[in-house]
């Protein structure tokens, strides 16, 4: 019994921790500790997931009682750690941001925790039913977080767009799974895989189902042309929520994308270049990278730029997903590693962005950044640092993430795709460097409103942790890379 | 035609007939009783005159007169109303109420071949076993008949499903009327009904856990074997009753049609028979909600100590008296008991109207969400905990509970006898001799030094 509880511990800790935090908010009326409390809860969950990793999923034999609903393999555990860490970092950022902007309401942390729980369920889902429950838990939380700044029409607009399109995408995906169920009679992913792999089954509804599921998943990871909601939702949401959506929600989306494409549709026919999903996903990847990078360069708003940047990163990740058909273990671990580097970099970037502005003097556009490097070097430096990581400059984590994904794609023989991805990361450098230009080489126009940095211990802690992870993944990627490889080997 | 359809027709006739007639009479009861409480005469003008003979029946002809009036009144429709929805709304108000009675049992299962038996020339009324099973006689081919139009597995859920449909009617009638009072009334009605529906559903969950079934017939059987629901789940009873009154939008929950604020709420613009249908549906809703409360909490067709084989007065193991009764008699008793209980509850509902003041709207919503809902959730929790404890308890606790259950049956029997006795006593007491019966307003007039005679005539 014990090992099975251990497998479930991360989810239990988050669920009960979130409830306890909600009660604490109601009963004690103390709001200051909530961010730290949430972070502690999520770090604890991550620690439990690490413990599960140490014990090894093969020794969590009793965890099979949760089958087929929840699968606790190394893939799940990797994502649990990643999701819990990103959630905790986002919560820390929220601690400073919400207080500064006067929207310090305890619901934020509860929603964030439950949404993280949903993402974990999504990563662990071994059945369509569970997958849907996890997806909705994660997404509804994200919708609420996006609309959390109730006083702001932009927040409402972004949340509404996100909600409507997200519901539509979920419905499409559900319809796809319903067709699959109709064709095979299975709802568990393993059963679906077996049924699809059997030669006897040749139903056209499977193709339609694949298309619908792919559309739904592409929405969740905001791949072009399903990305329309992303800039608005990211821009309108409170910045910590944006960080959460960019890191955790995207990670959850990729977890389920990998699981569904490589497990359910991982059979010979579906995963072959000629008859299956790879060309579609490759097309999505090309579109996503190219469109996002081109549009990102034209943005005035920093948050929108970061939103398009996150879309572009989804494109690189999709390259890795396509590569997984030829070199499964290597490509999958590259995607996981990339997700880890991307998550810490993007949360760090948003955290630094939070720190750059204060209430009434936020950083909205590039202009607001002008001269910040000279006026407040301590605040500008971390922002520059994470932007470099996102751009994929060598010593940072982002570089190795890209490197492994591109290498996996090359090894898989996807030369064209790799070249496009490479060109794109060069294009991306344009708008990342633009940040530097404004930070260090421009002065604000006379009389223009200038951003005033804020101070918050929580945000600084989050930035320090993100910087630590970025450097760790960049300078000593061994441990995490081994973990990602272990996932690939096991999966 | 299959047998069950054949059997269903008289059952439908009984239930719907009861519903229509009692609904109609209730309109009279409501008005007449209001008059009595307010010390006036009330409706008494409707009359059938044949020569010198006048048939008044204490105003009982008023419902009929109203019905005739509804039919011949101008059917007015506001010029900018949505014609289709405007006409659809009253129909939608009636249908759910009518459907709802389909699952309500008005008597125990009848064994047709055990009702009357003729052996040779002797006609006898046989008894049947207490277990309730019919001895099925393949020669006659008569199946046992449930005195229930249809016995659904989802029983109570069907009731809730139907009750929920009534909200749509209120909403679209108000919306389609193109009148802001109607719209406000509809808004109030639909938010009130949606809110109270939650409470309504959650309040009975505790009772459902104990009964272990959703079939209304089985609930009644459980209650006649153990104890009435009102004793097992008193909290649930009160919440359920309150929520039902709120669902039927009667005082003190009649905010949607608060005449001092909203003219007549969502059916302000209705006239003629369309208005009649709303009006009538409301009274029928009183009947159906009473039936529901009777079935779920007041023992349905059950009478204290009356079982399928006759009267057995027993407390726990101790048998006090036993009187075997024929199946026919027991069945008739049961059916009568159900309808009399229903009528009593209908009367109580009309009575409440003059006992409680109207809430304010925020109080109404606050009551639902902040009081009734948490209490019903707590009720579920407590019921579950007690249930678990009882499962682990030694057997004597079960015997004790059985004893207490029988005691409640005895209590009901004594209470009902007392109430009926005092009612009869009160009816035959002379009005003139008892000064308390002189109305309060008469007292007022007398104290003002005026003539005590008939201070207010209708």
């Amino acid at each position, binding site marked *: 019994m014990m090992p099975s509880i251990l497998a479930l511990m991360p989810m239990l800790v988050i669920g009960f921790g979130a409830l306890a935090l909600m009660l604490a908010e109601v009963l004690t009326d103390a709001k200051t500790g909530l961010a730290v409390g949430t972070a502690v809860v999520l770090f604890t969950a991550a620690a439990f997931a690490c413990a599960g990793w140490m014990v090894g999923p093969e020794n969590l034999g009793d965890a099979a009682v949760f089958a087929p609903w929840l699968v606790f393999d190394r893939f799940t555990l990797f994502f649990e750690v990643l999701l819990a860490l990103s959630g905790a970092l986002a919560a820390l950022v929220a601690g400073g941001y919400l207080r500064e902007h006067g929207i310090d309401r305890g619901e934020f942390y509860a929603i964030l925790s439950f949404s993280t729980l949903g993402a974990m369920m999504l990563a662990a889902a071994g059945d369509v039913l569970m997958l849907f429950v996890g997806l909705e838990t994660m997404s509804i939380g994200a919708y609420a977080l996006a609309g959390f700044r109730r006083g702001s029409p932009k927040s409402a607009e972004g949340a509404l767009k996100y909600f409507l399109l997200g519901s539509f995408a979920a419905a499409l995906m559900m319809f796809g799974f319903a067709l699959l169920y109709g064709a095979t009679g299975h709802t568990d992913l393993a059963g679906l895989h077996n049924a699809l792999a059997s030669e006897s089954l040749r139903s056209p509804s499977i193709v339609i189902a694949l298309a619908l599921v792919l559309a739904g998943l592409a929405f969740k990871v905001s791949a072009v042309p399903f990305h329309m909601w992303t800039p608005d939702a990211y821009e309108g949401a409170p910045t910590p929520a944006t960080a959460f959506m960019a890191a955790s929600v995207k990670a959850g989306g990729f977890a389920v994308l990998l699981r569904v494409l490589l497990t359910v549709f991982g059979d010979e026919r579906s995963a072959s270049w000629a008859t299956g999903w790879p060309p579609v996903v490759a097309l999505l990847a090309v579109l996503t990278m190219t469109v996002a990078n081109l549009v990102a360069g034209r943005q005035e708003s920093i948050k929108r730029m970061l939103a398009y940047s996150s879309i572009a990163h989804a494109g690189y990740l999709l390259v890795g997903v396509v590569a997984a058909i030829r070199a499964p273990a290597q490509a999958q671990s590259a995607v996981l590693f990339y997700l880890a580097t991307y998550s810490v970099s993007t949360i760090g970037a948003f955290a630094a962005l939070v720190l750059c502005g204060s209430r009434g003097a936020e950083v909205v556009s590039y202009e607001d950044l002008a001269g910040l490097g000279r006026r407040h070097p301590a605040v500008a430096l971390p922002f520059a640092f994470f932007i470099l990581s996102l751009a994929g400059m060598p010593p940072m984590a982002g570089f190795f993430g890209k490197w492994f994904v591109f290498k996996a794609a090359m090894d898989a023989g996807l030369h064209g795709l790799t070249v496009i991805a490479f060109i794109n990361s060069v294009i991306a450098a344009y708008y990342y460097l633009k940040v530097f230009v404004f930070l260090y080489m421009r002065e604000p126009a006379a009389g223009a409103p200038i951003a005033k940095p804020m101070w918050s211990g929580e945000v600084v802690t989050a930035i320090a942790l993100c910087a630590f992870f970025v450097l760790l993944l960049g300078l000593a990627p061994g441990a995490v890379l081994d973990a990602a490889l272990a996932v690939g080997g096991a999966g | 035609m299959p047998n069950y359809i054949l059997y269903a027709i008289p059952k439908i006739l009984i239930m719907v007939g009861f519903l229509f007639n009692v609904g109609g009479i209730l309109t009279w009861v409501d008005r007449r009783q209001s008059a009595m409480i307010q010390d006036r005469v009330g409706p008494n003008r409707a009359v059938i005159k044949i020569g010198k003979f006048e048939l008044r029946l204490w105003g009982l002809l008023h419902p009929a007169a109203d019905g005739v009036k509804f039919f011949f009144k101008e059917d007015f429709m506001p010029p900018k109303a949505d014609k289709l929805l405007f006409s659809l709304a009253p129909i939608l108000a009636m249908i759910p109420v009518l459907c709802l009675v389909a699952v309500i049992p008005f008597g125990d299962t009848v064994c047709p071949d055990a009702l009357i038996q003729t052996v040779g020339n002797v006609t006898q009324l046989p008894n049947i076993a207490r277990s309730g099973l019919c001895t099925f006689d393949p020669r006659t081919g008569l199946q046992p008949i449930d005195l229930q139009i249809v016995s659904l597995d989802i029983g109570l859920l069907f009731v809730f499903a139907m009750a929920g449909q009534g909200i749509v009617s209120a909403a679209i009638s108000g919306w389609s009327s193109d009148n802001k009072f109607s*719209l406000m009334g509809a808004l109030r009605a639909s*938010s009130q009904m949606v809110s109270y529906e939650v409470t309504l559903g959650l309040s009975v969950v505790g009772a459902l856990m104990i009964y272990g079934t959703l079939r209304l017939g089985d609930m009644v059987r459980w209650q006649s074997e153990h104890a009435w629901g009102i004793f097992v789940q008193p909290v649930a009873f009160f919440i359920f009753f309150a929520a039902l009154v709120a669902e039927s939008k009667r005082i003190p929950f009649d905010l949607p049609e608060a005449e001092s604020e909203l003219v007549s709420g969502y059916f302000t613009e209705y006239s003629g028979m369309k208005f009649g249908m709303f009006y009538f549906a409301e009274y029928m809703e009183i009947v159906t909600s009473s039936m529901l409360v009777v079935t779920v909490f007041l023992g349905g067709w059950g009478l204290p100590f009356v079982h399928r084989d006759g009267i057995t007065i027993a407390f726990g193991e101790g048998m006090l008296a036993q009187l075997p009764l024929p199946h026919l008699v027991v069945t008739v008793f049961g059916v009568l008991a159900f309808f009399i209980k229903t009528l009593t509850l209908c009367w109580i509902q009309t009575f409440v109207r003059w006992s409680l003041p109207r809430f304010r709207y925020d109080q109404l919503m606050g009551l639902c969400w902040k009081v009734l809902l948490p209490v019903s959730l707590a009720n579920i929790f407590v019921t579950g905990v007690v249930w678990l404890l009882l499962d682990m308890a030694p057997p004597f606790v079960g015997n004790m509970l059985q004893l207490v259950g029988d005691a409640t049956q005895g209590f009901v029997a004594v209470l009902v006898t007392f109430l009926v006795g005092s009612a009869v006593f009160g009816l035959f007491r002379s009005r003139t001799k008892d000064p308390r019966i002189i109305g309060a307003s008469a007292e007022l007039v007398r104290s003002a030094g005026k003539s005590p005679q008939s201070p207010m005539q209708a």
Partner: protein
Amino acid sequence: MTIGQVYFYLCAAVALFGALAAVCAKSPVRAALGLLMMVLAVAGLYLSLDAQFLAAIQLIVYAGAIVVLFVFVLMLLGHTPLVGVGDGSPAARILGATGFGAVALAAMILSARNAEPTNFPAALPAGFGSVGEIGRLMFTQTLVPFELSSALLMVAVVGAVAVSKGEKPVIVAAASVLAPPGAAPKPGESQ
């Protein structure tokens, strides 16, 4: 045709009509009622599949709560005809609808022709669709998703509170319906 088939086609026709009405109706309340009609007809279809519980829940949840909430919101918005639906030209809309409809139709026809249900039981297990059996399944076999869906409900509840309660919203166009034109909303009325 058996009674069952007649019943099926009747329910299916009503459902289709309701769905069409929901899409085509000009008045939003009529559209909501079309939706209601479809929901009721689908509940009828569930009944024919021996899924009484599902039918009742469909009526309670969808017809009794969700559609009512739709109507409720529409009432709050007042008599607003649907204007400005779809920014695209009518041609684009027709093209889109036709394309999507054709794909859906093709999917249905192809699926129906290739329908080879693999592992569906030939006979229904005892107690299929009954409340007791569903409850048993829910608390044994599907306990994990059942319990975890409480997290889903929780986040939905908290999320609804989070986006609806708190600082005063910036009023864009609300309160214009119930208040006569020109009358400024009183302070505190915005909630």
